């Protein structure tokens, strides 16, 4: 195991860097109380809009709160929304994609036209419309983002399923009298797993970016709990000329997190499935 990690790091230094960033992000989210020197909503007396210093690494905001602490707590929102969405979306996309690709026929035709329709919406427009119906909040954010990424990923998983379903070993299994359930669980699923893992990792970057955009537009977690997108939109933009660090650090955090997911996803794709290299974004 350790040797495999070492080999991965040597072969894909950028991928290893991505993995490192992702691990750091997870640690920040899990141990925010220990890492952050202050609470996310604790005003610090006499430290309003202070520039970055030794006492406050990233400065303080207009309500005298420590920016570094808020950025650390902000990781929670990104990680929770990112991983919850990807878990749900991957499950949904696999069910829809595998069934659509395996059974084919009229079922496939209908399902794919619905997916087409979803895909022809700009993602922000769908999500905003869904959020208008559901209202803002963490759970609703996850639901809206899930519907969307599931549609995109199911298309790719369907393609992979069709390719696997045509192989001779599936034909052999059928000739031996295996039922659909056995063929799908024993032959199809293990062979599309690489595709699913790659889609999930790359999807994490896209979902994190989408979450920050929605939070930026005011459809995320309600204040005072910090999310990076919301930190940029509210006071971050109001005071951006007087206290630019308020608008800079949350953006750095988003970019680093997405960069980490993208790098890791790219490297995993190269290792797990060389055929897909450069095929998706």
């Amino acid at each position, binding site marked *: 195991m350790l040797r495999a990690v070492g080999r991965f790091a040597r072969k894909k230094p950028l991928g290893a860097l991505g993995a490192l960033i992702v691990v750091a992000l997870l640690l920040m989210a899990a141990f925010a109380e220990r890492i952050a020197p202050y609470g996310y909503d604790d005003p610090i007396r006499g430290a309003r809009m202070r520039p970055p210093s030794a006492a406050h690494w990233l400065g303080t905001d207009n309500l005298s709160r420590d920016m570094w602490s808020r950025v650390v707590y902000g990781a929670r929102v990104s990680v929770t929304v990112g991983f919850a969405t990807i878990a749900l979306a991957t499950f949904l996309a696999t069910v829809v994609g595998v069934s659509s690709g395996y059974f084919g026929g009229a079922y496939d035709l209908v399902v794919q*036209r*619905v997916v087409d329709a979803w895909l022809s919406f*700009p993602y922000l*427009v769908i999500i905003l419309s869904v959020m208008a119906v559901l209202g803002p909040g963490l759970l609703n954010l996850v639901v809206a983002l899930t519907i969307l990424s599931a549609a995109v990923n199911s298309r790719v998983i369907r393609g992979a399923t069709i390719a696997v379903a045509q192989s001779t070993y599936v034909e052999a299994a059928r000739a031996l009298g295996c039922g659909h359930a056995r063929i799908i669980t024993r032959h199809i699923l293990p062979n599309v797993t690489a595709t699913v893992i790659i889609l999930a990792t790359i999807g994490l970057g896209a979902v994190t970016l989408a979450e920050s955009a929605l939070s930026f537009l005011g459809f995320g977690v309600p204040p005072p709990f910090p999310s990076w997108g919301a930190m940029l939109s509210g006071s971050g933009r109001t005071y*951006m000329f007087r206290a630019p660090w308020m*608008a800079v650090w949350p*953006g750095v955090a988003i970019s680093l997190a997405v960069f980490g997911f993208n790098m890791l996803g790219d490297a995993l794709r190269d290792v797990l499935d060389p055929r897909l290299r*450069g*095929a998706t974004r």
Partner: protein
Amino acid sequence: MLRRYLAKRLLIAVPSLLIASLIVFTLPRLLPGDAVQLMLAEKAYAKDVDELRAKLGLDRPLAVQYVEWLGRVAQGDLGESLWTRRPVLQELGQRLPITLELAFFALAFALLIALPVGVISAARADTLQDYLARSAAIVGLSVPGFWLATLLIVLPAIWWGWRPLIEFTEFSKNPLAHVAQFLIPALILGVAAGAALMRLTRSMLLEVLRQDYVRTAWAKGLAERVIVLKHGLRNAIIPVVTLLGTQLPQIIGGTVIIETVFGLPGMSRFLFDAINQRDYPVIQGVNLVVVSTIVTLNLAVDALYAVLDPRIRY
């Protein structure tokens, strides 16, 4: 032949458009009953709940509502805004061009970045230039547009005391200023799409450049420019055009944020305000126009395939 291919693509587009219209139509109707009451209390859109339901067309069977709505849409009637009481179509007539202009410039920037950089990156694979270009692309994919926009407004102000005007200029008033005001927002909007397109251009071109006929071209002593651009790029471009088709909705979606940040009175900003004001006729109308635009643009992308690769005929 080309005409038949296009007719077939058009036929496939119709069901997608119908399903999309059904989604557009259903979304506001998923509102729980008390939300109508909430709208009444919050915004006083109508005298009482019954009138508001009638206004929203929620008082008849769903199927009837859908067919009637579709019929009105076919006649160009998208209803009127609950907020401004003006016809949605009229509002869109002013705002859609702004969004399309922004999207057009963004797409132009994306292609202007993606194609040259992608080609150089592939032709000079594994050199310093290639590494720099690829790293820049990943950074471009990771940086959120709204942050980039904020930085581009803040940093020049702090360093040089220069602030961009957050004010919309009509084309008729000052054509130069009108175009200029789109350049920075469009560049930001185009960066992410450009990065994705660049990566694909590079990997597709690399694959093509390994083919036997490319080696033959080298052996014939053709110039590198001819080999890379004529033999290579032309054969690598189809997947890039496909990706371009899928990037279009993302670019148009991105206009929601960019228009808000830069104060451009486009369609996406209109939609965003309508969502905040729960102005359902506007949400429906704008969504329908957006989807139709994208389906049409995708049709244009399909037509482009046939031009780029004469072998493609369905």
